Each structure stands twice: as structure tokens, then as C-alpha cells.
């Protein structure tokens, strides 16, 4: 029989060992996306979407992939470069399962401080049409590169792109990120960094790597405290046979080693996710405003503008309108509900207000939009 004092000592030593082991450097695995995979490089700008951003050049050299551009001065401006390892979507083996990785590690150099957006393009069998690039899912994360150009983007920071949801392929509520069949990444410059002043800027992508941290050492060391405390339990049982339990024993309050999170998410990430989920579930409430959202989610009112600006480069009102407009346009295209019904369904209490916002967003009245988009006439 293990003596109680020895068991206590063993448990303490093994717990300490486990705690120390978990502080050892994690075993890192990585896989190069660029360089590393045969890729098809491309550049793009917002010209097709009515913007004025302009890609200037795309340059693959030993230093990496550089794109030069002039960013437009509207809130929705974008310009960037992408790399795909699959051009058509017909060869499944070309797809990469990003869910098996913790995040992306980027090495970048920018001509001056810029706000960037990383998009991941993934296949979705339920949506895919051979010749429609929009039938792939776009998930994105905004960031500003670190001072030395090194950037880490945890995989759970990627959110389904609002503009893609806006295309109406899926309901607004379907914000599922599907990162198991990724076929391309795109890096874009977006507003939020320097003022768009017409200067030529550039982004050099030195490398993009998938990274995960495994815990081969830590995994089995996690067992040690269990073994130790198990042994202690046996010792206690044995001691109970010999003497009455001691309610004052410090062991009765001994904490179990708490599980240590393998990867920390920032508070902003948590708040942003909470906000997105709450808005997606409540956007149809007409009375919804920033104060209400903050009260219901517990997000500090003073943090809301920063969260929306950092996460999406927008304001509360604009974000909420985008959600409502995206769902309204989808309903106009795919249902025969009247414009009034749709306006109320997406959270507008007045048809005139809805019509005005819709026209500003799509350049047409809802009825005209429905006709132009080949939607179902109202029944």
C-alpha cells in the first residue's frame, strides 16, 4: 500500500512535471503554400465592381510575389493578388484541408503601413457550378502586418465574407466557414491603413505557411497528474481503512490541474464573434441599435466601433444595413414575397426607409432589382 505522504509527494512532483512540460516549446509543423505549391498567380482590383482601385503590376521574383497598386478612396475599395493551386475545381486531391491547421503564418513587406485582408477560397459541393467563381466560399480576415512583416492569423479568425453572403447564394444566417477544401488564397489591400492618396503602394508576399503546433510531449504528460492523483486516491482509500477521514485535510480542496488552452484567442476575437453571431440572429428586429446590441451581448459600448472597424472596416449602422440588404436581395430573387413583407422581415419598420436604403445600396428600387435579377414576381 502506498503511504499517504508518499502519494502526496508523488502527485505534487508529477503535477509540477506536467506543468513544466506544458511550458516546453510546442512541436511546430508547417507546410508552405507560397512558395511550396505550384500556383497560378493572379491579380485583381475593384474595377469590375465599379471601383477605381488599380492593380499596377504583379512580380514573381526570388524575393516573393509583389503586387503594386493604387488603392481607391471608397470604403469598399480593394486590390490584390491571389494564388490558386487549382484552376477549375475538378481534381479533389488539389484541395487543402485548412481545418487540420492552427493558422496561417505570413511574411510580408509593405511600402507603408497598410490594412490587408486575407481571403481563403474553398469549394462547396452544395453550391459549386463549374463556371461560377462565386459558387466557391470566401472566408476572410482583416489584419495589419506586424512591424517586422510577420503576421499570424489563427484559423478561427476567418469569417465568411460579407460581400460573398451578399451575393445571395446562402442565407445570411448561414455563416458556416468551410475551410476543409481550400483551393486558393488572396491577399488584398483595403481601406483602413494609409489614406488613399493616389500613391503607388506595394505588398511583397515573401511566404505563406500553414502552421500547427502539436503536443506529442505534452499529450502523454497530461496523463501524469491523473496517474498521480489516482494513486493518491488509492492511498486515501487505504488510509480510510486505518483511520477516520480528516475533513480538514488540505487535499479535500486540492485543485485539479486546470486544462491549459493550447492557443489563446484575443478578447477582441471573442467579442467580434459574439457580435457577429448575435447580429446574424437578431438583424430582423426593427428596434435593434448599438446600445441594445451591447447590452444584450455584454460588449462594452466603447469597444463596439473598434471591433467593427478592426474586424470589418465598417460601422455598426453600415454592417447592420449590409446584413439586412443581403437578406433582402436574396429574398427578392428567390421568393415571391412582396417588397413590404421583405422590408419588415429584414428589420425595417417603414417601407420608404427600406426603399431608400435599398436604392442607395443596389442602385435600383426593390421591384426593379427583382425584375433585373430575374427574381420571382411578388405573388
Amino acid at each position, binding site marked *: 500500500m502506498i503511504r499517504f505522504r508518499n502519494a502526496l509527494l508523488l502527485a505534487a512532483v508529477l503535477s509540477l512535471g506536467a506543468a513544466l512540460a506544458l511550458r516546453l516549446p510546442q512541436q511546430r509543423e508547417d507546410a508552405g503554400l*507560397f*512558395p*511550396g*505549391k*505550384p*500556383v*497560378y*498567380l*493572379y*491579380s*485583381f*482590383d475593384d*474595377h*469590375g465592381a465599379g471601383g477605381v482601385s*488599380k*492593380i*499596377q*503590376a*504583379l*512580380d*514573381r*521574383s*526570388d524575393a516573393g510575389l509583389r503586387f*503594386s497598386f493604387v488603392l481607391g478612396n471608397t470604403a469598399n475599395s480593394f486590390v490584390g493578388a491571389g494564388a490558386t493551386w487549382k*484552376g*477549375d475545381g*475538378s*481534381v479533389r486531391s488539389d484541395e487543402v484541408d485548412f481545418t487540420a491547421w492552427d493558422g496561417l503564418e505570413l511574411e510580408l513587406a509593405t511600402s507603408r503601413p497598410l490594412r490587408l485582408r486575407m481571403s481563403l477560397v474553398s469549394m462547396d459541393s452544395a453550391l459549386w457550378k*463549374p*463556371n461560377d467563381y462565386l459558387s466557391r466560399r470566401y472566408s476572410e480576415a482583416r489584419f495589419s502586418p506586424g512591424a517586422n512583416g510577420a503576421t499570424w492569423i489563427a484559423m478561427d479568425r476567418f469569417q465568411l465574407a460579407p460581400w460573398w453572403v451578399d451575393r445571395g447564394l446562402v442565407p445570411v444566417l448561414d455563416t458556416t466557414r468551410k475551410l476543409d477544401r481550400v483551393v486558393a488564397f488572396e491577399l488584398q489591400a483595403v481601406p483602413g491603413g494609409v489614406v488613399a492618396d493616389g500613391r503607388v503602394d506595394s505588398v511583397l508576399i515573401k511566404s505563406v505557411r500553414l502552421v500547427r503546433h502539436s503536443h506529442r510531449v505534452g499529450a502523454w504528460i497530461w496523463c501524469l497528474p491523473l496517474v498521480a492523483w489516482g494513486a493518491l486516491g488509492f492511498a486515501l482509500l487505504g488510509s480510510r481503512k486505518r483511520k477516520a477521514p480528516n475533513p480538514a485535510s488540505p487535499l479535500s480542496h486540492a485543485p485539479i490541474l486546470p486544462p491549459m488552452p493550447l492557443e489563446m484567442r484575443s478578447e477582441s476575437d471573442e467579442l467580434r464573434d459574439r457580435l457577429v453571431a448575435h447580429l446574424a440572429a437578431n438583424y430582423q428586429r426593427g428596434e435593434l441599435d448599438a446600445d441594445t446590441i451591447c447590452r444584450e451581448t455584454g460588449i462594452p459600448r466603447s469597444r463596439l466601433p473598434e471591433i467593427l472597424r478592426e474586424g470589418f472596416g465598417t460601422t455598426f449602422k453600415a454592417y447592420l444595413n449590409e446584413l439586412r440588404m443581403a437578406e433582402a436581395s436574396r429574398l427578392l430573387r428567390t421568393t415571391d414575397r412582396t417588397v413590404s413583407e421583405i422590408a419588415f422581415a429584414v428589420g425595417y419598420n417603414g417601407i420608404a426607409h427600406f426603399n431608400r436604403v435599398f436604392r442607395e445600396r443596389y442602385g435600383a428600387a426593390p421591384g426593379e432589382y427583382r425584375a433585373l435579377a430575374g427574381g420571382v414576381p411578388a405573388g
Partner: protein
Amino acid sequence: MNLRTLLILTAALGLARVGQAQNLIPFNPAFELGSPAGWYMWIDEKGTGNASFETVDKDAHSGTYALKFEVKRAAGYPWQIALNIPQWQVKPNSHYRLGFWVKGPGPFQVDIKDVDKNYAWMGKIDGTPSPSQWTHVSGEFSTSTQSGLGKVLLAISLGLNVGTFTFDDFEIVEVDPAGSK
């Protein structure tokens, strides 16, 4: 102008419009956006090549801009560095003619591939440009009757030609089997 003259002019304009074959390249065919937006540079990273492309606003074949594509280091195979023409929807059992103007350091070929058949090779068009004079490259290709053919990739394979190519005024038109527009 009397009514008869007006009708004749209207009819003549209509006929002229019917006679013009539509350029099927969907975006930025002559680079007059002043940007290579819509055009794609393919680099097979298994190769050793380096390249860049950008629009330039001097010495265009027509208009203001042309596309400069510089192969800085040769790849192992021609197709490992390519300029890809924006894809467009093709019809089965149809005939098309590609034409464009080019200056460049050496011969190349345009590989024609069926996107929906995992880029199966459909044929090629040869180009032999001059380094200093604009040369017109032209060739035709046909799609088969098979179903599923949706898009064709036209890739100008430049991987072995170190130097600067300049391209302008791309056009793809549908032609009848005899070859006339």
C-alpha cells in the same frame, strides 16, 4: 434628310453591326484599363522561372496601353510560365479565331486547354514575334460536340524565352467552319 434616306442609313448601320463579330474576351482585351486586371500569370512553382507583368503606356499597338510580360529567369518547360487569357464561355461544336499583336524575344505557342476536362490539351497556335516590330499572331480552334465543355483556357507559354514580351489588342471571335467571320 427624307424618310427614305433615314431608313436606308438605319438599315446600313444595322447590317454593319451584324457584320462585326463580337470580341469574346470578357474583360480588358486591349489593356486600356491601364491595368492587367483580369489577366493571369501562371507560374509553376516546381519550375525555376521568375516573371512579372504590368501595363505600359508607351509604344502600344493601338490605344494607350499594352501589356509588358517579362520573363526574368527561364523555367524548365515552356508551360511553366504563361500568360493566361481571361476565360470565356464557349459553345460545343463551334469554331473560334484568336488574334493578338506581340513583340518579343523568341517563338512561343498558345496552348488551348479544356477547363472542364481538367485542362485537357486541345491544340496549339504558334507565334513567332520580332523583338522590335509588332507581329500579328492568329489561329483557329474548334470545340467538340461533347457536353460539359464550358470554358477554354488559352495559355501563352513563355517559360523558355527570357526577355520582355509586349502584347496588345487581343481578340477572340466565333467564326464559321469555313473560316469567315
